[in-house]
């Protein structure tokens, strides 16, 4: 345990501390430890992991709804594209840039950029449609210089480089563990076809069992994307996601 005592100033202490304060101030006027980034003429370089505006790759999307489910702010709503698939739209009037969606996306369809300085005129414009998220958007850039924070054992200093920072992060999209949906108890299947209805890749089909004259559902592992929606919706809870061998 450490005790902290509060100082009790004598007149001499007061004079000393007055002088200390004044001399520190004077020193800073002469040789300031300035750390100002002159935004918008300069821009601070953000790390590659910076969580900013998100880009979307429709090729990789398996339409699993997980980004929408995980979004704490409910900013991601799935919108039906002309092809009938559902793709995410992001409402930047709600988005908190936690990037749970980016971490969630099993196909690696969502990726981060370093774009974060945007001002919208209306709230309606803040709902960014899927079509707008595919290509990197153009933002107003006035910066000619990039500022790096250099922290060494002495101090924080700014390193200025005359270049225009690339805001689009080039990192390989990382996919989740490949999974596939299987039925663990086909005997209990009541053929409600929910799995078929919810499946977007058309992996589920109904098979007539000729012997017992009943219909059972079958999942085609080749077509299954492992989105897990059928597992979630199955009314008998007999579907499981397992690792794709």
């Amino acid at each position, binding site marked *: 345990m450490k005790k902290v005592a509060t100082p009790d100033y004598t007149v001499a202490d007061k004079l000393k501390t007055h002088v200390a*304060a*004044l001399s520190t101030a004077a020193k*800073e*006027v002469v040789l*300031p*430890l*300035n*750390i*100002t980034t*002159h935004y918008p003429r300069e821009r601070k370089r953000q790390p590659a992991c910076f969580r900013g505006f998100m880009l979307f790759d429709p090729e990789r999307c398996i339409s699993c709804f997980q980004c929408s489910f995980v979004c704490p702010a409910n900013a991601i709503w799935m919108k039906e594209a002309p092809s009938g698939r559902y793709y995410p739209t992001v409402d930047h009037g709600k988005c908190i840039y936690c990037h749970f969606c980016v971490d969630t996306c099993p196909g690696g369809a969502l990726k981060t950029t370093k774009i974060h300085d945007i001002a919208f005129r209306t709230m309606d414009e803040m709902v960014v449609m899927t079509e707008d998220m595919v290509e990197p958007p153009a933002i107003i850039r006035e910066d000619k210089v990039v500022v790096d924070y250099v922290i060494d054992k002495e101090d924080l200093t700014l390193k200025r480089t005359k270049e225009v920072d690339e805001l689009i992060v080039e990192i390989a999209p990382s996919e989740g563990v490949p999974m596939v949906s299987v039925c663990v108890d086909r005997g209990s299947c009541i053929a409600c076809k929910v799995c078929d209805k919810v499946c977007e890749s058309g992996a589920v089909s109904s098979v007539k069992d000729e012997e017992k004259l009943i219909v059972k559902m079958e999942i085609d592992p080749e077509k299954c994307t492992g989105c897990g929606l059928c597992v979630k919706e199955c009314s008998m809870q007999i579907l499981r996601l397992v690792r794709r061998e």
Partner: protein
Amino acid sequence: MIDITGLVSTILNNQVNIPLLYVIYEFLLRIPVIGSIVTFLLSIIPVFDVPIIRLLIGFVLWKPMWVLLIIPGFATLGTMLLILPWLERKLVGRMQWRVGPREIAPRTRGSIQLLADSLRFLCQEVIIHKDAHRLYFLQFPFLYFLPVLLPLLFINAGAVDHPLVPIETPYALQIMVGLISLMPVFIMGAGWASNNRFAFIGTVREAFMYFAYEIPFIIVILAMIVLFKTSNTVGVVNAQGSYWGIVLNPLAALVFFIATVMATSRLPFEIPEADQELAFGPFIEYSGIAFGLAYVMAYEKMYVLSAIMTMLFLGGGSGPVIPYLGDLSYGIWFVIKTLIILLVMVNLRGVYPRYRLDQGLRIGWGAMLILALIALVWSIVIGVVL
């Protein structure tokens, strides 16, 4: 009947001596076309036997008028008002590891920032809320100009034996003290007319602080009068021929400086206007140009008090004479000295937090009063000995 011809000759005989102007004039004459234009301009429309332009120039260069209008009068004051808050923001910004205003004019480091601010205040709505005393609310900021600007009439910006003063009177210092003592009354009036809780508290604080600094302030000026054996501003500067007032009586200089900081409500004595506590105290309800005036007035007051300090303690405009500048060189030295005091004063904002009201009062009534009295005794001793 006024003897106008006599007045004109008085004006023309009592001109500021700036050799540089003659040099420029002669140079202009030598250039072929411009020379003849200048000669022509200086000869047209004679009034009272003197060409009008010559008369106008002569009027401005008339010593008292020059002092009142140019240095250290209104022109300097105006420049200071535009430059000083900017300098303050830049220097404090520098002290705080940042930049201060800049993007408005990046090449000149944002030096016209204050122009934008004042223009914005000028074009903004002035709100007079329904509980305010309408007439007083508006008149006090304007009346405030009176005590702030009048002391300029008595400030001597000259050096020893080269007085530069609009009005020479044996009671100059007393009049200035009187005028300065008037200033808080207008602030209190403004606060009272605002009819707002915070304005009220601010007004009360202003009144308390007024007494706390005013007495040491007067005693210190008294000390200097005793020391210089005159209260004529010309005599005051003349008396500092060998030693400046700050050398003769450093204690008085210190007390005067602290009193100035208190009087202008600068940190650490920014008690009546305490931004975080009272949100500008007496000026809380002022908006638009009325607030602009109040904002600027603090700087005017600071300028006037610093000018008095320069005159009393730093030898007025004395300094190495710059060739070709003549009387202007005294003016320049005077402004430089004043500016240094002002910069020190405004930069205290970056160094000190704010005292509490009771602590401010204790400093005023305690340490400062005692120091002021010691300064007075010291002055008497020195005055008698010398």
